[in-house]
């Protein structure tokens, strides 16, 4: 199919450059589109250790196609589908561009976020996907969007002959809220509130990534105390999210007491976060230029509550991992091989269960992470749900270690004069990329400002990046493993659907 298309040299060279860079070891960070007066600009992010490099090309409106990157980079497949849904430009390659975040009817206009476009009415086409497999006794189980329990909406199509999962597809458009378009025209001060709601369970990480992009454009350094408070909130958020993942595992395994125990621990963490910030999700803490104010708890109160939570969590985690009826369900379940993880550039605990150790806190320290000692976590290659769970347990321990250092440093600073934020120019112009390590993995924000107003914001959540790999996590798994594999991925659908 691809040979019937002739692309301009520009587009062909772009695809070759990107493929070449990834072949040489760069990690594919994402492919994003934005409207410009002359066409649609494609921007690719490539990460090599401490450096994020970008490459871009404009796809002209006369021929809204470009050569698919997913031919060589499987991780690009979902980005190409997203761009097709939102901008109507097509990646030409062997894969079909099934709708993902916004299936539109023929003739409907698309959001085409960016500058210089008029937007017509957008009509969603909710027609179910057709079966992918054919064969004797193979049938499709549509699961969702309304799930059996208190979950975010997502639709899975499971194709199965009865027990084995032969093929799995996810569609997330049900929850698509069109947040990227909402950012347009906002001030950075309002934008950070919206960033907190892009993926609500990782509010702090999103706010930090967004704000650091704005701070880079403004060329300001945040005060040390602000960096430390950002770290404190980000690590509490990580603990809460990882506990949530443990709770989901316990629920799937029918471990009623463990479920209750970890729910209690999580409630304590949420209350601690509320006591420090006034919000159970740490909202309103991070602002462009620093933080909104001092923590609501003093060092001794913080230390004693951290001690209480950590002691409880540690003892129960030890017991949980020694409970055979729990660990047996995770061992060998949902294996993501190190090779698949590398191809998809797996992020966060999902990556760290399969040998992908990238961690923005270490690779590109932000906030106050460079001042604090981070424990390295064990290199695991098993790639099963158990390995992902163990990676999360390591991270919980690591987070408590970081939190203590942050409180300690903050306490020393307090003796002197404490500054919580620096002013940010209200008439900013420019573009930059911000990042943070969310509990789900690295979050990226591409932020563009003109005269102090946001003209384009593109968040890239780890949830989106990792869920693209979800169908690869069922090599020899059966329907009853589904709940465990889903819990071990720990993604937030809000962060996928946008």
């Amino acid at each position, binding site marked *: 199919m691809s040979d019937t298309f002739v692309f301009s040299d520009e587009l062909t060279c772009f695809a070759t450059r990107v493929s070449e860079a990834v072949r040489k070891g760069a990690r594919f960070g994402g492919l994003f589109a934005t409207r410009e007066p002359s066409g649609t600009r494609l921007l690719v992010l490539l990460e090599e250790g401490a450096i994020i490099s970008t490459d871009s090309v404009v796809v002209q409106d006369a021929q809204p196609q470009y050569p698919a990157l997913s031919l060589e980079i499987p991780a690009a497949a979902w980005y190409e589908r997203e761009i097709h849904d939102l901008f109507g430009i097509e990646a030409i390659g062997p894969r079909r561009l099934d709708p993902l975040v916004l299936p539109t009817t023929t003739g409907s206009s698309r959001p085409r976020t960016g500058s210089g476009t008029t937007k017509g*009415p957008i009509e969603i086409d909710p027609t179910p996907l057709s079966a992918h497999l054919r064969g004797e006794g193979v049938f499709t189980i549509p699961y969702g969007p309304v799930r059996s329990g208190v979950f975010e909406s997502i639709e899975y199509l499971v194709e199965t002959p009865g027990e084995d999962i032969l093929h799995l597809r996810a569609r997330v458009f049900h929850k698509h809220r069109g947040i990227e378009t909402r950012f347009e025209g906002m001030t950075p001060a309002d934008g950070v509130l919206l960033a907190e709601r892009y993926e609500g*369970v990782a509010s702090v990480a999103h706010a930090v990534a967004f704000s650091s992009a704005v701070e880079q454009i403004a060329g300001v350094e945040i005060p040390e105390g602000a960096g430390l408070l950002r770290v404190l909130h980000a690590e509490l958020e990580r603990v809460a999210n990882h506990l949530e993942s443990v709770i989901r595992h316990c629920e799937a395994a029918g471990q009623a007491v463990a479920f209750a125990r970890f*729910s209690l621990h999580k409630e304590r963490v*949420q209350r601690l976060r509320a006591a420090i910030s006034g919000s159970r999700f740490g909202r309103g803490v991070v602002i462009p230029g620093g933080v909104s104010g001092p923590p609501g708890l003093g060092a001794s109160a913080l230390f004693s*509550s951290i001690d209480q939570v950590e002691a409880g969590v540690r003892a129960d985690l030890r*017991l949980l991992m020694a409970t055979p009826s729990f660990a047996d369900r995770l061992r060998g379940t949902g294996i993501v091989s190190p090779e698949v993880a590398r191809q998809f550039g797996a992020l966060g605990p999902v990556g760290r269960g399969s040998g992908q150790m990238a961690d923005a806190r270490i690779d590109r320290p932000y906030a106050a992470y460079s001042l604090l000692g981070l424990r390295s976590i064990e290199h695991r290659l098993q790639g099963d749900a158990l390995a992902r769970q163990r990676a999360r347990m390591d991270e919980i321990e690591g987070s408590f270690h970081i939190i203590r250092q942050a409180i300690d440093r903050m306490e020393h600073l307090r003796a002197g004069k404490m500054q919580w934020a620096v002013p940010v120019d209200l008439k900013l112009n420019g573009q930059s990329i911000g990042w943070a390590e969310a509990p789900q993995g690295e979050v990226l924000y591409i932020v563009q400002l003109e005269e102090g107003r946001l003209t384009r914001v593109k968040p890239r959540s780890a949830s989106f990046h990792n869920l693209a790999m979800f169908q690869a996590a069922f090599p020899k798994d059966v329907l009853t493993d589904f709940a465990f594999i889903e819990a071990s991925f720990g993604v937030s659908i809000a962060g996928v659907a946008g």
Partner: protein
Amino acid sequence: MPWIPRGLREGVVTSRYPRRRDGYGPVFRAAVRVIDAADATTRIEDSVAACPTGAITIHDGRPRIDQGSCILCGRCTELRPDVFRFDPGFETAELRREALVVPEITESDEVLRLASAELGRRVRALRKSVHIRHIDVGSDGSDEWEVAALTNPVYDVQRLGVFFTASPRHADLLLATGVGTVGMLDALRQTYEAMPEPKVVIAAGVEAISGGLLGRGYASHGGIATTVPVDVFVPGSPPSPFSLLYGILLAIGRLSTADRAPGGRSPRSQGKDLGTARSDLYSEGFGMEGRI
């Protein structure tokens, strides 16, 4: 079975709300109010402009806040602490959308009494036990955490005869979170229609009430009220578990009149400002009931 003693060792952590007051309730930032005695005639336009959701409007020179779109960012309380303040407490849910606009638009008590009586008749059979079907219609994900928290040992809503169910066929109460995305509207309608009568709908969170910070857009309907009839509105972004619990109890008529002054907030959540409430919080170990 090493888990059983582990559970027992902790003792009772469960709240006694609504039979007893819970220490955690009043420490929470629940709503922004206009201070009654405030001289709000000068320069309130700044706060109006600063509100990211346009929740503040001016009527006859006095500000009015729509708690159905307030995301509690606190910008107005910072700009004009003499006019706006955070109110603690969690008893924020209302039976009528208009009642979320404070100070109240003069609405005849009759209208409210009618609404409340109609709902009361409908839910008479649900008073002892209610089954809830939760549906996410475009939330940011945090609302689900708060809804799920209702089943943790601290809130433990099963003790009140409140249960979550997977099938809409078993459900009496629909608890919707999120902005009402275009992609979920059919699912929302079908879920509502699949529920047997009598049924009650709760819009949980400002996103479900008005769309919150997202408002209306190409993919968002700005709340669920245009798709299904809403009986109870629970503000918050996201609403805390206690706010949700209060909304549920309000929906099924489980709150006595002493708990609730007609058309307004319960008397117990008034009069204590957040400053003193937060100092309790430190001394009481986050205001958690006794031991937690």
